[in-house]
């Protein structure tokens, strides 16, 4: 990721159209503030014959009424009409993608992480991952949004406007990245204690790279080859990890926390909290609640000897 997730540095088709509308509205707004501010200053400071005298007239100057009607009603009405037309046109343009979607991604929000599913023709071909979404550049991707608990909101400022994830309903949106890159995504609806740490990344890559990624994600985890990692695999199952986490190709089928089949291929851990390095992973595995207070993942005091093995195993999950 580079710099701000700014709505005015769009890298997606929808965000681009909205940025144009946004510039239009921002310029109009700024112009109105400058004009009215100027009128106020002029009204305050315009030369007057004698500042001290009262201006007590019974009848209202006709010019005042004219100002109120023209300045307060007629001119704003035309400006608002223009803003409304631009709103409706942009709204229609971003309502559906320009071309049929090339993929559908199901996003389920949990407190406080994102479950990502690329549904395949069969269960074997379905990819389950977390907090990292891959999309092909130049193709629209449909996103189905639902929530497992409370209301969240899916927002990738540089790619598309936000849409809420609401229990009991599935909302749909689409994104189409125009340029390859890694874009920051956020939960935008306050969802409780760790709302601030419920982020994700969207990786936009060439269609070929995307297909390669998808094919790789469909593979189960390869069994560890070196002895330390094998020890770690046993440790993973032996500690509480497997209660909540699944690793395809093993007996670990927990569905409470994120799927870890290709954990080591992801860029971040803890829903955008930390870079995915072995050192950070160890901190996270041993004491996640101290890094992200309130989350469901408990502290797991793995003895020092076993710890390196578990991390070594997790690092094999490429």
């Amino acid at each position, binding site marked *: 990721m580079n710099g701000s997730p700014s709505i005015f540095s769009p890298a997606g088709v929808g965000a681009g159209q909205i940025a144009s509308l946004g510039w239009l509205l921002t310029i109009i707004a700024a112009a109105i503030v400058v004009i009215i501010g100027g009128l106020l200053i002029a009204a305050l400071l315009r030369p007057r014959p004698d500042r001290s005298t009262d201006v007590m007239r019974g009848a209202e100057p006709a010019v005042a009424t004219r*100002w109120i009607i023209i300045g307060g009603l007629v001119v704003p009405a035309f400006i608002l009409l223009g803003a409304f037309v631009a709103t*409706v046109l942009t*709204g229609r343009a971003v309502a559906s993608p320009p071309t049929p979607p090339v993929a559908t991604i199901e996003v389920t929000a949990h407190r406080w992480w994102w479950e990502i599913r690329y549904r395949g023709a069969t269960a074997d071909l379905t990819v389950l991952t977390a907090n990292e979404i891959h999309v092909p550049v130049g193709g629209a991707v449909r996103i189905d949004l639902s929530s497992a608990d409370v209301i969240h909101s899916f927002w990738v400022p540089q790619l598309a406007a936000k849409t809420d994830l609401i229990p009991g309903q599935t909302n749909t949106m689409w994104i189409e990245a125009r340029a390859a890159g890694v874009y920051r995504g956020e939960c935008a609806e306050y969802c409780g204690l760790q709302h601030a740490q419920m982020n994700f990344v969207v990786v936009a890559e060439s269609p070929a790279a995307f297909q390669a990624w998808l094919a790789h994600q469909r593979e189960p985890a390869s069994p560890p080859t070196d002895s330390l990692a094998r020890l770690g695999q046993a440790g993973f199952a032996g500690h509480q990890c497997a209660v909540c986490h699944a690793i395809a190709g093993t007996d670990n089928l927990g569905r409470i926390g994120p799927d870890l089949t290709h954990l080591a291929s992801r860029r971040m851990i803890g829903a955008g909290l930390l870079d995915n390095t072995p050192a950070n992973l160890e901190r996270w595995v041993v004491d996640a609640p101290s890094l992200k207070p309130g989350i469901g993942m408990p502290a797991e005091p793995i003895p020092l000897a076993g710890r390196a093995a578990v991390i070594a195993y997790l690092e094999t999950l490429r």
Partner: protein
Amino acid sequence: MATVVAETAEADAPVATLDRIWRTPPGLLGTLTSVDHKTIGIRYLVTAFAFLLVGGLEAGAMRAQLTHGDTHWLSPEAYNQFFTMHGVTMLFLYASPVLSGFSNYLWPLMIGARDMAYPRVNALSYWTYLLAGLLIYASVLVGQSPDGGWFAYVPMTGATYSPGLNIDFYTVGLTFLGFSTTVGAVNFIGTFFCMKAPGMSVNRLPVILWGTLSSSIAAVVFVPALTVACVLLYLDRHVHTHFFDAANGGQPMLWQHLFWIFGHPWVYIVVLPAIGIASDIIPTFCRRPLAGYTFVTLSTIATIMLGSGVWVHHMFATGLPQMSTSFFSAASMTISLTSGVSVFAWLATIWHGRPQFRVPFLFMCGFIILFVIGGVNGVMTASVPFDQQLHDSYFVVAHLHYVLVGINVFPVMGAFYYWIPKMTGRMLSERIGRWVFWLMFIGANLTFFPMHITGMLGMPRRVYTYASGLGWDTSNLLITIGAATFAASILLFLFDVVRSRSVGPIAGDNPWDAPTLEWSVSSPPPPYNFAVIPTVRSPYPLWESRLGERPASVLDAGPVLADGRETVGTDALDGEPVAILRMPEDSPWPLLLAIALAWVSLALVFSAWTWSLIGVALTVASIIGWLAPAAMQPARAEPTGSDRRLPMTSDA
């Protein structure tokens, strides 16, 4: 007018009698039983300002956390409670009550009456407000303050995800506070339509009456939506109903609709009286009548009517169809026309006037600028696709603070500088006031303008910390500096108020050479307000000689009504006298009823059903005591005066 015999107040005898009749006895009992609108108004102002300080401290804690990225000084629990209590405090316990304070204090003085229509209801409104505020803040004592944001979306605030008492303080506290708002609003509506001085037709009213009337009608109509939402949530949490529970056929969106059907008009409720205040202060310092009085008053009413149909613009990201969002988008844009009319009315008043740059007027100028910014950034968020980007980002925080600080706090500060001399008899310092204004104007813009940028750079609201390096660091540092500047202005103002009590110049009746009736009486006004009930012939009774208005208002002659607490009741539109109203004596029942309601509320927070039933019994007993026949109240002499051509009413 033929029905009331004009009777000149002779010498001091009637005045002494009036003073004896209307003065609240000193001592604790008098303090607790007073129904004097001036006392109640000042209590409202002091209490609301205290809540403003508390809400400001909460904001200060949040700004300390957000000054730099990756700060963890406040835990997420603490931060989430701080931002929720900041919103609840400012919106419910400061913004609306402070305006009720001004309206309570000023209305009878502005319309030539001796009290509000329902003085005991007025006392009840204050006591329930105070106790509801204390109840909500009692949550601090158990460390479980509301933490669901001021709009407390379900299902996060349901029993599953918020098992503590936090949300119970919220639902019960706001329902309790709803009593205060509702009875207060009924009192304003009754006063508007029945209590104006003879001859004070509706086109001769100060604009604050129109603003507060519009607000009050909206409160009566829309507060029930919040009450319903809170009651349903309470039932979901404690009786296991499923109104908001999607898994059992409930609908989480129902909360959002109910909340915003109330919540959006609430924003107008807390700004329209302030718009009225501005429309009354600006003419004084432009030395001419308000241009476009009819436009401004009609626009307050149009605002409330349009404002009842825009609530969905808080829900543009919830997946509603484009057809319905477009409708609410158009309605939300249209509402800015009413603001445009008011702004140009003020501009025209200033243009054709002779501006005098006194402190209250400075605040009005600042208000106009912030109002315009808060209006146009509102239009930006009314545009559906752009709002779907801006929604729940810091841009929205910028917008709502420009609206609430710009259109509530700035007029309120101007109003303090303008009317405190009337309340205390002493002027505030012109020199300190200029400092207060400039610190506040710079502080407000330095705080809230960069929030537009932070939001456009993708920073969501309600995050207890954020990562450095996302481009949000500089603007957040500026915001905190701005907030400190703003806080300094508030402290300087408090210093000025305290200082003025001893060394402020004596104000006299009318220090600003202002045109309306409250400036015709002494500062502070006597307990009975007016020695004689005036007869009003123009919107600016004290400027009539200069405006050449004929016939002139009569301020020094009229009904004395010195046979008990009495004032003149007039008809709704024209101010024709229709009755002499007997006003109630001081009474302990408003306080006792408020305590009984607080008892019920506190018991409900803790789900203590038996205790709450005892509270209900106390409530019923208090109501019976309140409504007991007049025979149980101090005997009153039969009317004897010569101004007895109008029918008498029983106690209001």
